[in-house]
């Protein structure tokens, strides 16, 4: 069974208002567990909106979205939280690390909301930081890290709870090409170790690292 299955998904912002925006228009898409998929498109084509729906941060205006066999459109926000908490990891273009907070504390955030105790949290956070090559930076705050290092902390945070799906929305958009390559290396290794990885990008070189690419244009798959 496929991990991600969208059927005629439509997303309209400010529906009914004169300034309503159709961000996604009749998207149907299937992604299997273990795939490494890139989503490409120009700015405003609906990539982030699609990511939010795939990541259960938002629900479609119409159509159906199935995650791991569950129909997401019928879930309450409480149920969505518990899906995100256990099965999904997010990486953002702007890192979104907590300011004045150490790498460890940032990385252990998802574990806090799973109710995992302090000692185990720290141990797992340090482990994951080693995996992304930041074993010597665990006490640094984001202000003390380079952009590439900050994004690696964010990746560590996205994978510390061993999610089945990792979503990265333009993870290399704010980085130089070398740091971008390193980030893609990490995501590729992550995929090889079994996680499903979806990367949004408008950089063809980045998309080339994925097994397949989905192109969006004006909210439609082309």
């Amino acid at each position, binding site marked *: 069974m496929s991990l991600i299955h969208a059927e005629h998904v439509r997303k309209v912002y400010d529906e009914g208002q004169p300034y309503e925006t159709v961000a996604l228009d009749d998207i149907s898409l299937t992604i299997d567990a273990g795939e490494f998929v890139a989503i490409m498109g120009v700015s405003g084509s609906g990539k982030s909106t699609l990511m939010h729906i795939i990541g259960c941060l*938002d629900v479609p205006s119409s159509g159906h979205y199935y995650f791991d066999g569950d129909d997401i459109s019928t879930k309450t926000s409480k149920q969505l939280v518990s899906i995100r908490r256990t099965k999904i990891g997010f990486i953002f273009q702007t890192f979104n690390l907590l300011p004045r907070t150490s790498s460890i504390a940032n990385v252990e955030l998802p574990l806090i*909301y799973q109710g995992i105790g302090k000692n185990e949290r720290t141990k797992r956070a340090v482990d994951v930081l080693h995996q992304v090559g930041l074993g010597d930076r665990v006490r640094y705050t984001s202000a003390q890290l380079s952009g590439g290092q900050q994004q690696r902390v964010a990746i560590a945070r996205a994978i510390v709870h061993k999610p089945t799906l990792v979503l990265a929305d333009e993870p290399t958009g704010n980085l130089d090409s070398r740091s971008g390559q390193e980030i893609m290396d990490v995501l590729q290794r992550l995929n090889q170790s079994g996680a499903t990885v979806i990367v949004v990008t408008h950089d063809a070189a980045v998309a080339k690292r994925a097994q397949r690419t989905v192109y969006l244009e004006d909210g439609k798959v082309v």
Partner: protein
Amino acid sequence: MTMIIETIRIAFRSIWSKKIRSLLTMLGIIIGVFSIVVLIGLGAGVKEEVKDQIESIGSNLLFVLPGQIDSGTLPTGIVGSSTITEEDLADIESRERLDEVTPIMILSQPVRRGQNFAPGALTMGTTPNIEESFLVGVETDRKEGRSLSQKDYDTAARVAVIFGAVKKSLYGEEDPIGQSILIGKETFEVIGWREARETGSIISGPEYSQAVLIPLTTAQEISDSNEIHRIIITIGDSNFVTSEKQAIEEMLLKNHDGVKDFSVLTQDDFLKLIDSILGILTNMLAGIAAISLIVGGIGIMNIMLVSVTERTREIGLRKAVGASSGNILAQFLIESIIISFFGGAVGLTLAWVASFILNAQVGIAPVIDLQSITLAVGFSVAVGTFFGVAPAVRAARMQPINALRYE
């Protein structure tokens, strides 16, 4: 359980990361709690003090005053035209059980020596027994010269016994005995002076140290009136205080044609009177202080609303990685409660320090007991909870995608 501890830890971290702002936010609560605790404590402290004073004058006294005085109303008409007559005095003096009956007429004429005035002096025309009856309860440190005598009384002599403050302002360190003072236009010879112990009492203290005693007959002569402003009665056996009070009341009521325009008060009545006056006063002040606590609460709400807006992205991120609305609600609510709780604790500590300072400087120690502590801390936590709800709900309601897009 771990979740609660974790939430408290998160709240602490966020308070700590903005120390100055948190402290300023606490300020309203600190001031509110400080003033409530000090004012309530001061009320209780003053009450104790006054109680001690009234008790020290002895429980075997009765006071007859003009005007009607009930618990809860301030005594009026003590000076000025009095409703107590010579007939009343004579009737009271005829009673068997009474040891001493001391009438007092208060003269409102300036006391001076040459051009030198004694500002607060209180001239009392009275009988020679005053120092054995009423003033026996007043502790005197020094007693120089003689007292008023029966002969002074019978001849309406122009003689005076002056008390500490009056002596000081007219004579300083000089010996006043044998010197003359002016009361109104009349010249008096000072025959004695007394140093009443500094009692610091609001009620009786200044009166004693400002007293100038002259014979009642003299007072009547120079004021050309027979008014009596107070009658102080000493009863040898304090068991009869209540029954004598009743009997005297009935007697005077008959004299006054059934109009109760006088009061007969026991020491107990005075205590109750003071109790209720100070009680009303304390509650009023505490109520005003409570308003400052509410203002402090509004300050917390204000800052927390700003903080929620500032931390929109943080909230979005927390929700994206698995925080429920309940987690976010708890985080911000606990932050408000911690701020107000510590504000309350600091306010309480300052009040405690203030009680030592007040005790040393003024001699009145605000009473800080378990009740005022629970009240203060409970009140501040309640304020923090109440005013923390709105910001916390606002944070909890944020949609993760909107929060993450927030600039």
